[in-house]
């Protein structure tokens, strides 16, 4: 066992994948010489050379296009879009080309490309550098979407994403790069499988990324009050592992979903809709979704700290669901 950071989990995944498979390449802005804006690609250039680790101009459309075309030729490109917010500048590539290329061609073309992007509020980066934008892509069939919350999963999901024969978006979280965890041997984590991170009988809390950590903190505090929560990390929001959540709700009969992004059009709303539809009769209380607020993300600490669901607000929501 050793302790690694989330950043290190991602970094090792890239190193291991590139060492094992010659067809893996990495491209993006400042990913090579500088080792990445968040240092996730550190050391790759030195180890694998400039043919496989490529700095690009500030041209997100060109980055995604290069990844798609290279993947169609048989490479396994891992493209970085620095802040997830910038996915907006190459949205056509990600939403209209990447996930439809196989289908439109009747299966002739495989696109095993990965796009890594950094999600997340809480750091004072304001409206255009703080969003968690996985929800922009939920309504686009053909994309798998991973949202790791912990170091071992960061490693495992990124490895699985690179192995996958289809496009996978991996949303990292800026606020978690320095988060640490004791890990054993690092392994791939199957896409589409949620993790039950904490077991309790009183309700099921599903939370991702930064909110997973806050939910766990809230759950630890609530245990002192005699409330025992199961906490589930969806790990991928497409496909969403509804079965694991349903399995848990069968035992707890209560559900709270916590996410950083606003509610409308989110994976959290999708999950609540799905379980309501599939297992309505299981619930002893209405399922509940706790989200970031329906405003752009403000800069000042006194504003942003309220925008994000806090440990206290999560705990309050848990109490409300349990006491319903």
């Amino acid at each position, binding site marked *: 066992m050793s302790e690694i950071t989330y950043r290190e989990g991602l970094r090792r995944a890239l190193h291991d994948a590139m060492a094992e498979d010659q*067809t893996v*390449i990495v491209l993006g802005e400042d990913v090579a010489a500088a080792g990445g804006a968040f240092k996730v690609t550190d050391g790759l250039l030195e180890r694998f050379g400039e*043919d*496989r680790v*490529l700095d*690009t*101009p500030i*041209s*997100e*459309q*060109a*980055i*995604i*296009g*290069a*990844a*798609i*075309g*290279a*993947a*169609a*030729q*048989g*490479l396994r*490109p891992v493209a970085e879009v620095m802040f997830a917010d910038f996915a907006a500048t190459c949205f*056509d*590539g990600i939403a*209209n*080309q990447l996930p439809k*290329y*196989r*289908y*439109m*061609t*009747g*299966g*002739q*073309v*495989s696109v095993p490309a990965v796009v890594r992007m950094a999600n997340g509020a809480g750091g004072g980066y304001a409206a255009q550098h703080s969003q968690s934008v996985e929800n922009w892509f939920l309504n686009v*069939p*053909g994309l798998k979407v991973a949202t790791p919350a912990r170091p071992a999963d960061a490693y495992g999901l990124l490895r699985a994403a690179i192995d996958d*024969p*289809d496009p996978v978006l991996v949303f990292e979280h800026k606020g978690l790069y320095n988060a640490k965890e004791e890990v054993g041997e690092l392994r791939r984590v199957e896409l589409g499988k949620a993790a039950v991170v904490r077991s309790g009988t009183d309700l099921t809390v599903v939370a991702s990324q930064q909110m997973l950590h806050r939910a766990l903190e809230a759950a630890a505090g609530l245990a002192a009050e005699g409330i025992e929560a199961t906490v589930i990390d969806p790990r991928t929001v497409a496909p969403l592992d509804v079965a694991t959540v349903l399995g848990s709700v069968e035992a707890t009969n209560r559900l709270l979903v916590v996410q950083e992004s606003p509610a409308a059009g989110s994976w959290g709303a999708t999950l609540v809709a799905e379980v309501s539809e599939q297992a309505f009769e299981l619930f002893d209380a209405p399922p509940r979704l706790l989200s970031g607020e329906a405003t752009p993300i403000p800069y000042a600490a006194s504003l942003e700290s309220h925008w994000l669901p806090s440990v206290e607000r999560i705990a309050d929501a848990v109490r409300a669901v349990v006491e319903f």
Partner: protein
Amino acid sequence: MSGLPEVEEQLDWLRSMHLIRGFEDEVNAFFAKGLVRGSTHLCQGQEAVSVGACRALAEQDTMTCTYRGHGAVLAKGAPLDRTFAEILGRAGGLCGGKGGSMHLTDTSVGAFGSFAVIGAHLPIANGLALGGRLLGRDSVSLCFFGDGTANIGAFHEALNLAAIWKLPVVFVCENNLYGEYTAIAKTTPIDALADRADSYGMAKARIDGNDVGVVYDTVTDAADRARSGGGPSLIEAMTYRHKGHSRSDPAAYRPDGELESWLEWDPILLHERALGEQGVAEATLGEIGTAAAAAVATARDRALSWPEPDAATRLEDVYA
């Protein structure tokens, strides 16, 4: 200039142009009968660009094009019958009926896709070039697009990246003077789109896109340069589409006489004249036209005889 190849090869260009012309005329007739869904964009008049450029490629090379790509895909070697069938939405179509007129693809002949969002495939063409290079395939990536496409952001990003990475790409802009219903001069503040290559320090050429020999020659040079590490090129091939932009367009925006004068500069006529000057008998030329018409009719009938795709297949090919 690398010079023209043997006459036999040049006769094959004529054959190919006839096949495309005949194919497009049939697709036009399909419309009238309600056999084609959505929209479709014909390329009669632009055959020399498709054929001249595709014939300049090697087997390992890739080609990407647009919704106006029937000619390009056929020139690259896609079978007539399965191409018809795709446009008709039949199970035997190139893409199993999933793509249709705007997404014709046949990777077995290097036709890596027809893309329907303007500009989208230029960055992808770079990727095909990059992939080919890293995988040691010695391949060139040929990329067709229209004049109107030179104003979209992806064009700029793609040309810049191709240049800085010296990717083996040949960008062929088919300047047919219009983007949809609007003449190029209304949307583009310069005359020669090829000059935009200068923004990227890229090799350029502006050529008669109706002269198949000139196209062949120019693309051959560009492909040679690309393959030998000399980087990408931008070729502007001046041409004209005989029909409107798409099925619903009567092309009323054209000045009087414009179509007529271009019909006199028809790529098939031009090439027949050139072959005649090289000593090919008129009868030989005539036979090629007749044989092409027969081949098109046979392929059409075959495609029409094929069934629609089974509904269950719609759920396949999303993931591997």
